[in-house]
C-alpha cells in the first residue's frame, strides 16, 4: 500500500478533486451568495470551485444528496461543465460520501474538500495550490491542518503528529481521531510546539491517495458507518501520511455567523478592503453611539 501511495504522487499529478456537499445540515450552504475577493457576487460553491480550478485541478466530483443537482448546477455558474455530479443515495456518513466518489477518482490521487468551508490564503498562492504542491513534493497523502483550541474539538477531526525536522509546518501523522474530547486529545494528540490546549485539527482539505478509498471500501463492507477519520487513522498506519499547516485560514460557513465571518475575511483580503473597512468603522462608531 505504501508503495502505491508513493507511486501515485511520484508519477501522477493531482488532477481530480472531490467536494462533499451531501450532508443533511450542509446541503444549502454552498448555494449561499457572497462577494468574492474580486468584488464579484458568487455562490460559495463557485468560490470553492475557483479555488480548486486555479490550483490546477481538471475534474471535480461533487457529492450531493439526491435531488440537489439542479440547484448545485445553477450555483456552479460557468464551471458547471467541469463538474461530475455524484449522488449519495443514503446518508451513511462522511466516509461513505467520500467513497461514493471512488468511481470518479479511480486509481488516481485526489484533492478532497468539504463543501461548507471557504479558504482564504494569506498570499497569492491559494490554499488548495499550497496543499497540492506539498503533496506532490512529499509524494504522499497530506491533510491540511490548523492549530485549534480545545473548545472547538467537538467540530473537527484531529491528528496526533510529530514535526518533521527542518520542514516548517509539516508533520508526520501518527494518529487520527474524529471529534475527540480534550480528555482523549491530551493523552493521544499532544503535538510538541503547539500552545497549551491547542491541537492540529483538520482544515477541511486533504490530498489523498487511492489507498484511502480502498480502506473506506473495506470499512463500509464490514457494515456500519465509515468515518473518514478512521480511514485516515488506518492510512497513518499503512503509508506515509503527513499533515501540513497552510498559509491561510478556513472558514466554516455552517456555524453561527460563519457565513458573515467568511464574507468579512474574503472582503478584507480582496480589492474592496478599504471600502469594507470604512463601512465597518462607521458601523462600529454608530453602534457605539447607540450604546452610549
Amino acid at each position, binding site marked *: 500500500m505504501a508503495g502505491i501511495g508513493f507511486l501515485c504522487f511520484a508519477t501522477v499529478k493531482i488532477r481530480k478533486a472531490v467536494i462533499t456537499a451531501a450532508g443533511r445540515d450542509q446541503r444549502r450552504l454552498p448555494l449561499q451568495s457572497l462577494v468574492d475577493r474580486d468584488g464579484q457576487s458568487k455562490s460559495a460553491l463557485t468560490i470553492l470551485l475557483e479555488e480548486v480550478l486555479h490550483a490546477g485541478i481538471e475534474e471535480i466530483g461533487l457529492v450531493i444528496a439526491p435531488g440537489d443537482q439542479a440547484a448545485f448546477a445553477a450555483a456552479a455558474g460557468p464551471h458547471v461543465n467541469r463538474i461530475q455530479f455524484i449522488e449519495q443515495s443514503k446518508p451513511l456518513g462522511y466516509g461513505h460520501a467520500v467513497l461514493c466518489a471512488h468511481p470518479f477518482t479511480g486509481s488516481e490521487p485526489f484533492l478532497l474538500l468539504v463543501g461548507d468551508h471557504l479558504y482564504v490564503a494569506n498570499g497569492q498562492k491559494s490554499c488548495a495550490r499550497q496543499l497540492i504542491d506539498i503533496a506532490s513534493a512529499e509524494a504522499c497523502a497530506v491533510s491540511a491542518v490548523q492549530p485549534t483550541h480545545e*473548545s*472547538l474539538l467537538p467540530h473537527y477531526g484531529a491528528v496526533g503528529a510529530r514535526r518533521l525536522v527542518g520542514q516548517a509546518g509539516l508533520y508526520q501523522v501518527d494518529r487520527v481521531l474524529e471529534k475527540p474530547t480534550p480528555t482523549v486529545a491530551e*493523552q493521544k494528540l499532544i503535538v510538541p510546539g503547539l500552545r497549551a490546549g491547542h491541537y492540529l485539527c483538520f482544515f477541511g482539505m486533504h490530498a489523498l491517495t487511492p489507498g484511502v478509498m480502498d480502506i473506506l471500501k473495506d470499512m463500509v463492507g464490514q457494515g456500519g458507518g465509515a468515518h473518514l477519520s478512521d480511514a485516515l487513522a488506518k492510512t497513518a498506519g499503512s503509508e506515509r501520511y503527513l499533515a501540513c499547516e497552510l498559509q491561510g485560514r478556513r472558514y466554516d460557513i455552517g456555524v453561527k455567523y460563519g457565513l458573515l465571518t467568511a464574507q468579512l475575511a474574503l472582503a478584507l483580503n480582496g480589492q474592496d478592503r478599504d471600502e469594507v473597512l470604512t463601512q465597518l468603522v462607521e458601523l462600529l462608531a454608530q453602534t457605539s453611539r447607540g450604546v452610549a
Partner: protein
Amino acid sequence: MASKLVQLITSPDPAVRNQSLDAVCRAASVTELLAECAELEAFRHRSENLYERVRALLFLYAIHRFHLPLKPGVHARTLISFSGYTHLLQRRFEEAVATFLKAQAADGPSDPISSALAVAYYRLALQTLADQVRRSVRSVRGNQWMFRMGHPADHPLRIRPELLKRSDEDGTYPILRERTPVRMDLTHCGWSDIFFLGMDYPEGAKVLNISIDLGVHGRDSATRPPVETYLRVLDEPVLRLTSVDLGATADITNLADVFDFAKDYLGLLKAAVIAGGIVPPGVEGSGQSLADLLARVVGPGRGLELVSSVNGIPKGSRLAVSTNLLASMISLCMRATGQASSLHGSLQEDERRLVLARAILGEWLGGSGGGWQDSGGVWPGMKLIEGVLAAEGDPEFGVSRGRLMPQHRILTHEDASPALRQKLQDSLVLVHGGMAQNVGPILEMVSEKYLLRSEAEWKARLSMLAILDEILAGLKREDVAALGAATTRNFFGPIQTIIPWATNLFTETIINRVKTDFGKDFLGFWMLGGMSGGGMGFIFDPAKKAAGQTRLQEVMTQTKREFEYSLPFAMEPVVYDFAINEKGTWADLLHGKSALLPPGYYALIMPPLLRQDARALPPLHRAEMDKFAAACRSKPELRGMVQTLFDRLLPRLKTDDTSDESLPALLERYGFDRAQHEQVRADLKSGRIGLAQNRLSVSTQIQDVTEGDVFDATHELPKKYLEAGMAALAAGEVAVVTLAAGAGSRWTQGAGTVKALHPFCKFGGRHRTFLEVHLAKSRRISRIGGVPLPHVITTSYISHQPTEAFLAREKFYGYSGPLVLSEGRTVGLRLIPMERDLRFSWEEMPQQMLDEQQQKVRDSLRHALIGWAQQAGEAGDYTDNVPLQCLHPVGHWFEIPNLLRNGTLARLLEQRPNLKHLMLHNIDTVGADVDPAMLGLHITLGGGLSFEVITRRIEDRGGGLARVNGQPRIVEGLAMPREEEEFALSYYNSMTSWINLDRLLAVFQLTRADLADAGKVADAVRALAARMPTYITLKDVKKRWGHGQEDVYPVAQFEKLWSDMTVLPEMNSRFIVVPRRRGQQLKDQSQLDGWLRDGSAAHVESLCEW
C-alpha cells in the same frame, strides 16, 4: 563538617540512605545536633529534589521532637513567640520556622522552641508532599484541560447522542447505569499505597487488590456490585443529584453550589461531576451560569440527573466504598460525554487509569483522600498494583523517584487459578466490626516513619514485602491456609511495629474468641484499610465458613456490647457475603420500561410528586410515574414499594418515649436543675454569657509568674520531702481522686464514650485502660507506702454505670485498696449554640487554617452549621440525638463538692480518719501518681491547694499559670482577655492538684462533722458555686444515623472549672513545676505515637505495677 544526616538523604548507596536517623542522633551532643540542624536547614533550601527537601524537613522535625529536648543543657523554660504561632495557624510555615530559629539563636536551644520548630517542620513537610500530589494530579494528561476551561462557551464536551434519544414508548430519556464492585486489600502491605510513599519508594509500593461484590449476610439474598450509579438527561436546566443511601436530593441551579461540598450530603456526587469534567474545576468562581454550561454540554434547556446507591453498605467498611462510588460516577460522566469510548460494558485500560486519576482529583476536591489502590473496583478480578519508577516524559520525572499513578497487573489464572478463587470465597469471612475510625492520623504517621527510616519500622516494611511474595506464592499453590498464616503474621508483626495503633482491644478480643471457638479451623486474620475494628477478614477452613459467619456475628455483637462505652462504635457489627467480581466496573444503557432507577430513589422522589396535582406535573414526570407504577406491578425487586410509599406519605405518629432511657427520665434521674438551665438560656440569649463573655476584662493585667511564685520540682527533690511523704502515706493521710466524669470529647470527637475505660495503649503486652493505669500506679504506691491507697473515681451520668459494670467485670483490676466511685450529682442539658458564639469561635478566635481545599470544605460546613443553629432555634434545648448525647457534665469543679454531697468523703473518712490530703488529677494525666516526695512537698509548702504545672510547649493551649492583677493563679484559656497573652506565660496547668482536706472544708465553711448534714453541705456547695465563674463552651457531639453515618454538631454547654479555686485567697494555693512526663495530658489520640516514642509511655509504665 560534612553532615552525616545530609549524607543519609543524598547517598546513592541504599545501605547509607536507609540508615535510621535515631541511631545517628542518639550519640550526638547538643552542639553536634544543632550543627546538623543548621546543615539540614541549608540543605533543604538548596536542594531542588522534592523528596530530599521533605526528608530533611522530617529529620528536622524528629530532632526537635525526639532528640534535642532530651539532651542536657537544653532549657526547659522559654516563651514561644505569638507571631510564630500565628504564622503556623495561617500555614505560613517557612515564616514560622524563621521566627522560631531566630528565637533559638537568641536564647539558645530550649524545649518550648523545639516543640514549636517540630510542629512547623512537620506541617511544612506534609504540606510540601500534599502540594506535589496536587500538582501531579493536575498534570496527569487528560486532566489538564479541566483546569484551563473557565467559561461555558469553551466547554469542549458534548453529551452522547444516544442519551438524548427518547423512548418511543413513553418519551422518557434512557438511563446510563454503571455498576462497580468495591475493593478488598488482601495483603495489607504497610499502607504502601499512600501517594507519598509510592512516589519515593515505588519498589516498595505493592498491593494485592481484589474487586468484590457484596451482600449483608442474612439481609441480602445474593451478592452484587455494591456501587450503582445512574445518569440521565433532564428537560430542565438543572443538575439533579440524589444519594439514595443518604436520603438526600438537590436540584442545583447555581454554579457556585456545585463547588459547595459540605452544604448537603451530596459532596461526593458534586466532586464526581467536577472530576468527571461535566463542571470542570476551572470554572469554579467564574460567576458563570450553570444553565449555560449545561446548555453547551447537554443542549439548551436541558440538564442532567445523577443518582448514587451503595445498597446499604455501611460507611467505614474499609472496602473503599466511597472511592469506588466516586470512581463509578466519574466513569459514568466520562462515558456520557465521550471521554470513554463505550456506553456499554467495561472500560479500556487507559480509561480506567484516567478514572483513577480523576478519582484522586475528586477526593482532593472533597477534602479527603485515600490511597491509590482505592479505585481498585474499577479493574476486574484480582490484581497486583505496584508503584512505578518515573521515567523521562512523566510529569514526575526529576521531581520524585516514582510516578503518582501505579500500574495494575491483573492476575491470570496461572497466578491465581479458578479453583483458588473459589477456595478464597469459601474461606474468607468479611466483617465490619462497627468501630468508628479516623485513619487520617495513621496515614500521616506512616509517611513520617517511612521518611525517617526508623530502624524497627524500616525492617518491618521490608519484611512486609517478603510476606506479599509469600502470599502470591501461596495463591499460586492454591494454599489458603498459608495465606491465612501470612496475613495473621503480618497483622501481629510488621503492621503493629509500624503503627501500634492499628490494633485495639476490641479486635484482639474477637480474634482470641474466634481462635478459641474454632481452633485449627480458624486459619487467619487480616486487617483491611488503615486500622482494625471496622472492616476485617477472618479465614476459616471452607467446611466451617458458614459456622464462622454465624459465630462471628455473635462474637462481634457480644464484644461490642462489652466495649461500647470504652471504644467509639458507629454501628452494629455486620457480616458480609462476598464474591470476586471478574468484570470490574460495567455499564449498561437502559431504555424504555427497563430504564428504572434504584427502588430507594423512588421512595425518596415519589412522595412529593404524589402530593401534587398530576395534571400540574410536567409530562416527563408523569411518564416517569406511569413507568414506575407499571414496574411496581410487574417487577419482583419492587415488591413492597407500595407499603414504603404509604409509610412515607402517611408517617406514623411520633409518641413521646416514656421508657427509663428517655430524655425527661434521664434528666429526672440525674438531678437536672431546670431553673438553673432556664437562667443559663436566658443569659445566653441576652448576651450576658457567651464565649466572648468568658473572658476576663481587657483591663486585667496578665503577667508571667516570677521565680518565687513557683517551686521547681523538675529535679530530684531533697530527701526531707520524701520522708515527709512516706510518713503521710504510712499514716493513711492521702487518697487519690481521679476525675472520670467527662465524655472525653476530643479523644473520640464527641462519640460519647467513657474515656476512663478506653484501652488506649499496650503496657506489659496488654491493652490497658486509663483506669487500669491509674490503679496500677496506686498499687505501686500502696506497696511503697505500706498502706493501701484509697482511690476515688468521680463519675457522671455518662460514665457511672459503665464504669461500675466495667470494673466489676474486670474484678476491679485486683486493686486491694479502697476503690470508690463518686457519682455525679449535676447534669446539664445541651443547647443549640448561638450564631454569635459560633462566629466568635470560628471567626474571632485564632484558627488553624487547613489546606486550601479542606479549608473550603470546612468553611462550607460551618456555613451550613450556622444555618442549622438559626433554623433549629438558637439557645433552644438540644434534643435531636440519643438522650445521653443531649446531656452534658457541668465541669470538673463540681466533682469535689460531689464527694461532699454524695457521702463519699464522709465514708472515706470513716474508714481513714487520718485522711488529710487528696491528690486530684485528670483521667488523661497518665504520669501523675502519689509520688511520696511530691506529697511531702505539698505538705511542707502548707497551702490549701498545691497545683502542679509544667513548662509550656506549643501544643499546650488553654491558659496557664499567671499573675492576674499581681495575684498568682491558674487562668483558663477561655478566660484569657487576649489570645497573645497566653504566650507570655511560661507554665501550663497539668490539672493535678494536691488538696489539704481541712483547708478545703474550711473554704466551704464546713467541718468534718458537718459532712453528715446533707442540707448544710448542699447550702455550702451552692454558696461557693455562686462565687465560681461559669463558662460557656462549644463541644462537638456526634449524631449517628443511617448505615454508619456520623454528623458532628457544635453544641453549647456551661461549665465550672476546678482551677478557678486558685482565685480564692483563702485556699492559699501553691504552684509546683513538675517534669513534663508527670504533668502532660493525653487529650487527642494523635498524641499517642509521639508519647510512645519520646519515652513518656515507658516512664508511665515504670510507675505501674500490674
